[in-house]
C-alpha cells in the first residue's frame, strides 16, 4: 500500500493542459469543450464507442484519450457500456457487412437527440478497405454522421477536437 501511495505522489498529476504540443489554440478548445459540455450536456457527455469493422488502431487512440495524460473525463466526457445512455456514438472502421446490422441496432437503441462521429479514414470513407462485398465503406453509408475525424488513426488530440466540433 505504501508503495502505491508513494508511486501516486511521485507521479503527481501528469494530465496535460490539453495538449501541450499543439499549443494555446487547443487549450482554448479544451476549455470550450468543458464549457459546452457543462451547458448543453449537464456536465457529462456520454459516449458509446462502436467498432464497426476497424483494424483496432482507432480503438487504441480512443483508449488513449482516456489515459491520464489526455484525461478526457476532466471535460466531462464519459464512455458508457450501453447505447441507451449515450449522447454520442463514436464509430470506427469501414462498416463491415457482418457488422452492418449491429451498427444499425446500436444506432436505433441510442435515444434522440443523438450525435454520430465517424473516427478514422476508414470511418470517413472506408479507407484502404474501400467498398466491396465485405467492407461497405464509410459510416455515413449506413447511418447519419454529424462529424468525421480523419487520420489513420487520428491522434488523441484530433479525436478530442472532433468531439468538440460535434457538440458546438
Amino acid at each position, binding site marked *: 500500500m505504501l508503495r502505491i501511495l508513494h508511486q501516486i505522489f511521485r507521479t503527481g498529476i501528469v494530465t496535460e493542459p490539453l495538449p501541450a504540443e499543439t499549443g494555446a489554440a487547443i487549450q482554448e478548445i479544451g476549455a470550450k469543450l468543458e464549457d459546452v459540455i457543462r451547458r448543453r450536456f449537464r456536465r457529462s457527455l456520454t459516449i458509446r464507442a462502436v467498432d464497426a469493422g476497424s483494424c483496432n488502431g482507432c480503438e487504441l487512440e480512443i483508449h488513449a484519450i482516456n489515459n491520464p495524460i489526455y484525461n478526457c473525463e476532466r471535460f466531462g466526457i464519459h464512455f458508457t457500456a450501453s447505447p441507451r445512455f449515450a449522447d454520442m456514438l463514436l464509430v470506427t472502421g469501414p462498416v463491415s457487412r457482418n457488422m452492418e446490422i449491429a451498427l444499425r441496432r446500436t444506432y436505433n437503441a441510442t435515444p434522440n437527440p443523438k450525435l454520430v462521429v465517424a473516427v478514422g479514414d476508414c470511418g470517413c470513407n472506408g479507407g484502404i478497405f474501400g467498398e*466491396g*462485398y465485405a467492407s461497405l465503406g464509410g459510416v455515413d453509408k449506413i447511418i447519419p454522421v454529424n462529424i468525421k475525424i480523419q487520420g489513420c488513426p487520428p491522434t488523441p488530440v484530433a479525436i478530442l477536437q472532433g468531439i468538440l466540433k460535434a457538440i458546438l
Partner: protein
Amino acid sequence: MTLRETIISAPGIDASPDENQCPSNVPAYIVSREQFRDAARMMKTADARLVAEWATDESHYSSLPLPSGEREGVRGRGFGIYACYARDNEYLIVKTYTPIEDPTFPSITKKFAPAHRFERQMNSLMGVIPTGHPDLRPWIRHEDWPEDAYPLRKSFDASKPMQRVKGEYNFIKAEGEGVYEIPVGPVHAGIIEPGHFRFQAVGEDILNLEERLGYVHKGIEKRFESLSWTEGVKLAGRVSGDSTVAHSLCYCRALEAMTGCNPPERVLWLRALMLERERIANHLGDIGAIANDAAFAFLLYQFSRLREMLLRINLKLFGHRFMMDRIIPGGVIIDINSDGKNEILAEMNWLLKEFERLVVIYDENPSLEDRVRDTGILKPETAKELCVVGFTARASGRNLDCRIQNPFPPYDKIIPKVPVLNSGDVHARAWVRIEETRESIRIIREILNNLPDGQIAEPDLKSQASCPQPHRAGFAVVEGWRGEIVYWLQSDAKGEINRCMVRDPSSVNWLALEQAIHGNIVPDFPLCNKSFNQSYSGHDL
C-alpha cells in the same frame, strides 16, 4: 530426421518439391490429394505443429504444366490446398490440388486441432470441401451470405455488395436443470473489437463457451489481390492496427524472399528496433488492462502513462505513433540519427526504472494475485494440442519464438532470452509479458549501441523487392507481440498478386480461450479474455 527428410522418405507418399516456393529453407512438397492426410499423419508422428492451412484458386493457371501424376483434363490446376508444419527451427509446406468440379480434399482436423477452423474458413471463403471434417458450419462467413458466394474464388466479383439471405447459425446447446445461456456481443461494453461469445452456465460456473467471430471481416485477403505489391504493404499494416509493424514486416519479408532481395543490415536492425518498440507499447497497455479487469485501476493508469510516453517518442522519431507505413519492400523510410539514438537510450533508462517500480506493485498485491493466479488455465498439453503460439504458448510451457527459431538479423546476434512458464494462467500470461518487456528494453539498447552503418532504402532494392517473377510463392514468419505472424504470398502469370495468405497468431490462439475458460466463473471472463488479448480484425481478415 528433419521434417523434410520425413516427408521425402515416407513410405506411400510421393512428394515432389515445388521449385517456385521461396525461401529455400522453407520447402514445399506436392503430394497427391489422397496423400494429403497421410502427410499430416507423418507430421503428427514427427511431433510437428500445424502452422496454417489455406487454399488458393489456381484454376486460371492453365498454361502451366500439371505436376506429374495429377489429373489430366482438369481446367488449370483447380484449387491448391496447403498445409504448413513446423518443428523446432524448421518450416515445411505440403501442397495438393483439387479439381474445380470436385473440390474435395481429405480433412486433417482429426490429426491437428487448429485445422478445425482453418478448414471451416477454407470451406466458407473458397468453397473447397474437407471430407471427414466433423463440423462444417460457416466460419467468418455469416449465415446471411448468399449460398454460392465464395469470395476467394477468382470468379467472384468482390467489388459488388452481397445480398442478404435468410439463414441461421446453430450454436452448440447445453441442456439440464439450471443451465442457462448468456449471449454477449458483438458490440461489447468496453472500447474493444466486436465478436460474439455464447456461454452456457450453471449459476456462475461456465460449462461451455462458444466463440462466434467474423464480424470485422473486411475482405482483406481478397483486397490484396486487387492491389500492387507496393500498395499491399499498406494493407498488411492495417490487418491488425496494434501489430502494424509486425504485419508489414512479415509481408515485406515474404515478398523479399520471393524476389531474392536482401536489404542492408541497417534496415534489418531498424526494423527490429520498431518491432521491439511495438512489443513494449502493447505489453505495457495490456499489463495495465489486465490489472484493471481485476479491479486494480491504479496500474492501468500508471502503465498507460508509460505507453503514452513511448508513443510520443514514436511520433517524434519515427513520424507516427504506431510506426505505421515505416517499413516498405526492400527498406524502411525512416532513419535514426545519433540524437535519436541518445533520446531512445535515455527513454529506455527512464522506462525501465518506472516499469520496475510498477512491477513490484503488481507482484506484491495480494488481492490482484488472488484474481490472476489459477484463473483461465491453459494447460501445457492443451496448448500443444491446439498449436498455439506467442506469449500464450510461452505461458503454457511451449518454448516458441520465431525470433529464435527463425531469426533474421539482428536476432542472430542479439538473441532474445524468452521466458517460459508452465502454469498457463492469467498471471503466467501477464508475467511472460513483463519479462519480455525487460528483454525488449535490453534488445533495443543493444540494437542502438551496435547499429550498422548503411543506406535505408536504395531505389534499386525497392524496385527489385516489388517485382517478383511470375508463379512464385514467398513465405515469412515474424514474431509480433502476440506471437508468430505468417504471410504466404503468391504471384500470378504476370507477376502480380494472386494470393496473399495472412495468419495472425489469433487465428490459432482464439481456440485456446474456449479451453482455458472451462471451470471458471462468468465474472472472470473479461479478465481471461484480456489476458489473451487476441485480435478480431487479424482473425476475421
